[in-house]
């Protein structure tokens, strides 16, 4: 394997230029060092910071961009690869589902310039709709998947992935997990190498996947798998920690750190890649061992491959197939496997934890939208974004949420089912609408579905921390660009009822929604106010509750606004409400719902 660009840094050596980098920053650094020329992504936790970081490297070095969705991002990267430069697409695990169509075909085609896909899984579901294991996708698509265990490896594996991609004519996946992506660890960066662009290869038999060509490419893919198995068996990226005894551990990625934290003096094989399996290396390691314990986060990918090889592998009998690993989980697993003593389950402090679920921010423009929806008593097909938080009390007004862009087509299906007496409303954010909401809206118009689409336009991709998108008029690097006009776009799709409302005007929002619901056929209401956090943090003069007037009715508390809490005063035995002036941005929604006119702007 081509290792020219690799400088191995042993733990414990002097590291003059070391600095703490997150896994995402290290992946970006590795791509930059490898000479990447084009990089594209759609934001998604925990992968977002990869592209944000790449966007801070010099524009002369590479073009980095937000794409409308993950498939588009991968297709952009594929185009760059066709044109002979190194390219990267980054995404979260469920983003790979969106990009899968392109990935499956491109696996047959192979690369011209090296192409790397950085995929961040989310074991434990910190901020996702599932915890699927992307390594299975790698095997499905027959592309190798490298699994770094810390920041230094994230950098080096990403850099080497480009070499591997070109050497074996394959896209290469680098799999991170939330814990790697968002852990800072000591990293020694290297220098960027400039890679001369390769000429475009005019080879339709390789680059145009018609059945006749694809049939000839499939055997190449299988041959490539064998070559990769052999090369990975010899790769110095694998790591063997010697130990004693006849029990060995095979692991990969973040699980390695927990294994090393827990066990000393047990032989450990840390695989650089979970797919394809470095079979020769594994066989050598297994020689003389009675038991092989596989420690891998989520699905038994390595374990199953070992079992197919006929090796005495055990793993998921001791370690969970779901949730995130931690030192505790690994200890419990090794205890179940009989390698160490079980830890005591004693908890010395007996403290009842207070629930503190995530909530919409103070002044969030989504708040009024879901207050109005709840009052309408509608059947609400939701989508993915901050506004999914409206599923819980007190806003509690979302009935379904499946995946990015699902809401509108879900609503079409609900309407066509003909079983609902309530109005059917789809809610979708601006960024999600651009990601995958436009084709279903066309579908709704085309099939004349009697639904209302509520486009929650807060002018940013908020959930992932405030990224620009095609309707903000700014690129990843902050340059001015064309801006999608939602109203014009939606009218152009054939929607006749399109109204824009102010998210800070409860009454008009409610009235507009009622009119939209009364409209037969597709109606669209656009709520229009910027996110209070991004691109600029909004802070207006706060509101204050006149304690002498408050009747403790709790109407304002139904907003779920984190600036509202209980004061120490009572009215008829119920707490009056107080407003935290630090948190309040002065959106006035609480004053609009106040039944006793007791909420007013604070005097300066």
């Amino acid at each position, binding site marked *: 394997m081509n290792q020219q660009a690799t400088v191995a840094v042993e733990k414990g050596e002097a590291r003059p230029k070391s600095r703490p980098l997150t896994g995402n920053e290290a992946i970006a650094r590795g791509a930059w060092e490898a000479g990447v020329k084009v990089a594209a992504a759609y934001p998604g936790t925990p992968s977002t910071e990869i592209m944000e970081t790449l966007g801070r490297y010099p524009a002369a070095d590479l073009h980095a961009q937000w794409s409308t969705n993950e498939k588009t991002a991968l297709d952009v990267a594929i185009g760059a690869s066709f044109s002979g430069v190194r390219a990267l697409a980054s995404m979260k695990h469920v983003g790979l589902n969106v990009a899968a169509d392109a990935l499956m075909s491109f696996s047959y085609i192979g690369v011209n310039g090296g192409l790397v896909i950085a995929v961040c899984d989310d074991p434990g579901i910190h901020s996702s709709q599932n915890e699927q294991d992307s390594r299975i996708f790698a095997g499905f698509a027959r592309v190798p998947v490298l699994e770094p265990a810390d920041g230094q490896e994230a950098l080096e594996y990403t850099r080497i992935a480009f070499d591997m991609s070109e050497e074996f004519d394959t896209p290469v996946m680098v799999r991170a997990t939330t814990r790697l992506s968002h852990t800072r660890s000591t990293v020694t960066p290297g220098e960027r190498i400039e890679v001369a662009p390769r000429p475009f290869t005019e080879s339709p038999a390789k680059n145009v996947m018609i059945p006749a060509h694809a049939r000839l490419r499939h055997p190449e893919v299988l041959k490539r798998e064998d070559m990769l198995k052999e090369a990975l068996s010899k790769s110095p990226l694998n790591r063997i920690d010697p130990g004693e005894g006849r029990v060995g551990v095979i692991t990969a990625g973040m699980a390695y750190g927990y294994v090393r934290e827990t066990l000393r003096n047990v032989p450990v094989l840390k695989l650089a890649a979970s797919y394809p399996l470095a079979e020769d290396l594994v066989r050598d390691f297994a020689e003389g061992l009675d038991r092989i314990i596989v420690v891998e986060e989520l699905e038994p990918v390595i374990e199953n491959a070992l079992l197919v090889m006929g090796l005495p592998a055990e793993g998921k009998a001791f370690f969970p197939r779901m949730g995130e690993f931690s030192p505790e989980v690994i200890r419990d697993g090794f205890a179940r496997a009989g390698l160490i003593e079980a830890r005591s389950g004693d908890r010395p402090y007996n403290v009842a934890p207070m*629930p*503190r679920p995530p909530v*919409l921010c103070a002044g969030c423009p989504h708040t009024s939208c879901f207050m109005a929806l709840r009052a309408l008593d509608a059947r609400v097909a939701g989508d993915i974004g901050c506004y999914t938080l409206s599923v819980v*009390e007190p806003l509690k007004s979302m009935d379904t949420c499946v995946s990015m862009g699902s809401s509108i087509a879900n609503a079409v299906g609900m309407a066509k089912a003909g079983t609902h007496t309530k109005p059917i409303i789809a809610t979708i954010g601006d960024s999600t609408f651009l990601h995958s909401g436009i084709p279903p809206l066309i579908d709704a118009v085309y099939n004349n579905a009697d639904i209302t689409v509520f486009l929650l336009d807060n002018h940013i991709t908020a959930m992932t921390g405030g990224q620009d998108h095609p309707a903000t008029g700014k690129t990843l690097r902050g340059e001015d660009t064309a801006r999608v006009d939602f109203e014009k776009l939606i009218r152009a799709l054939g929607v006749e009822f399109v109204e824009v409302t102010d998210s800070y005007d409860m009454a008009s929002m409610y009235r507009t929604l009622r009119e939209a619901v009364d409209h037969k056929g597709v109606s669209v209401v656009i709520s229009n106010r910027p996110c209070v956090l991004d691109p600029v943090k909004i802070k207006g003069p706060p509101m204050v509750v006149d304690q002498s007037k408050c009747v403790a009715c709790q109407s304002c508390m139904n907003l*779920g606004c984190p600036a509202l809490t209980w004061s120490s005063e009572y009215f008829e035995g119920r707490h009056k409400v107080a407003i935290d002036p630090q948190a309040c941005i002065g959106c006035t929604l609480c004053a609009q719902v106040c039944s006793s006119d007791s909420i007013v702007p604070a005097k300066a």
Partner: protein
Amino acid sequence: MSEAMERPKNVLIVGVGGQGVIMVSKVLAQLSLNHGHDVKQSEVHGMAKRGGGVFSHVRFGPEVWSPTIAEGEADVVVALEWAEGLRWINYLNPETGTFIADCQRIVPPFACRNRFRGGEAAYAPETPEEIMEQVHAGYVLDATGMAERLGNLRAANTVLLGALSTALDFPEDDWLEVIGHFVPPNTIDINIAGFREGREWALAGNKRVAENAAGLHQSHVVIHQDRVTTTVEITEEWCKGCDICVKLCPERCLRLNDRLVAELALPDLCTGCRMCEWLCPDFAIAITNTPVREAAE
């Protein structure tokens, strides 16, 4: 190298989204790196940002493997908010750990759900004194108040860093140098002053509790309120189905029935607040709250 020397230091920093948990942990990570340690600092973004609980594990030493601290193994827990500190207190090493907490309370709306007469916030009922009795070492200080008096609420984090500095072995000047890199230039003086105040406060005695941490007692002072039973009477003949009571009931327990007459659909949720009675333009709703006579003991 002995096992004790090899063992990394574990510091868990917790708080509420937006308080600066990540800034505090970045300062510690950079400081440890400057001192030649291997460092891992682990946090989770995403949903946590939206006012939920935020945590950051910082581990440093000659060699650090796991990015997270196991339960019962934190050398220090630093809490930027009181109840968040209690949420994570079982991560503290019960024999040797130090518990450092700001006494400020951030009571989320979610904790204010019991709206019945006499209902109280579901906030941590433990007092600072009760917690200090149980930990090996600890401080409950009014970092937010100290920072406010210095002129910038945001400096509460550096006050806590000052207290944290007494539990770790780095020289004071090295702390201040790193802090200087992480705070806005025009706030350096306030942050240095905050750090020193926090440090001196902690040096003045173990298990010290700020006097105004008494505010934390409020949470379990039960102000006695007579319990009541509520009856809702709706005069059907007078109701014209205008929907006002249904839309404005804070507990959302009313609805219009098939004949478009208001009715109490979810009586268990009714708190007897009388909003519907006051708002009904036709005087069709009457609420009666009758005090419950406690059974004789």
